């Protein structure tokens, strides 16, 4: 019956990091992809307007649509953040519960 708090805290930290490693790796390339896509879309829009392929009304309409697309993409970052916090906390708590169960 041993309960080494230092080892348990270390295991909790490792469990939390291990549980979210894959999700954390997703974020930087995805954020880059979002802004690369946005850049391409806005560039195409500006070029189309300058070339007269679309009217000013269409240009304004497309800008509003791009804003909505960007909002949808950013909401995924919010979901990832919440999921990361949830997985990390639950993994850490599980380690603590298992350790205390073993000790008693």
């Amino acid at each position, binding site marked *: 019956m041993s309960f080494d708090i230092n080892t348990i805290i270390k295991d909790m930290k490792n469990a939390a990091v291990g549980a979210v490693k894959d999700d954390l790796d997703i974020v930087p390339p995805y954020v880059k992809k979002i802004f690369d896509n946005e850049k391409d879309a806005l560039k195409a829009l500006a070029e189309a307007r300058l070339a007269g392929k679309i009217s000013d009304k269409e240009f304004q309409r497309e800008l509003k649509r791009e804003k909505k697309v960007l909002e*949808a*993409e950013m909401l995924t970052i919010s979901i990832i953040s919440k999921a990361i916090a949830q997985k990390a906390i639950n993994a850490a708590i599980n380690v603590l519960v298992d350790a205390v169960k073993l000790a008693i």
Partner: protein
Amino acid sequence: MIIRKQKYNYWFILVLIVYTISGCRVQYVADYDDNIRNDIISIAEEIDMFYTLLLETTEADRTYESFKEDYLDIEVSLRSLLMKNKIRPLNEESTRQTELALELWLEDKEAHKEDDTVSDFIINQHRSQFQRIFIAMAIGESVKEE
């Protein structure tokens, strides 16, 4: 005697901690749902097929009437996904993403109805916009805990 009493107190606290947190699980987002993920992929395919068919049709033949049924089918699929997302607790972001997809789809439908045609440029822009939204939805669903 005092040491023995402190030892009992220590174990009592540990048992209390286990009892308190063993059923404890924090939840900030909805659980992963395989059916929702499949719906996301399926509607993304429907929309991609719609734009592919639109591009294959000559601009003069891209009348609203020729594509009205497809607009309505996809609108129903999006409304169904929205309802499924709305009834899941802790699912505000996925619900809003579906609302945005539906708003864009209805705007597309109205613009097509008004102009009675769609240019290649707009088709390509809108196809790319929906791909981005559906990728965002699929990633958002896949990171949720099973």
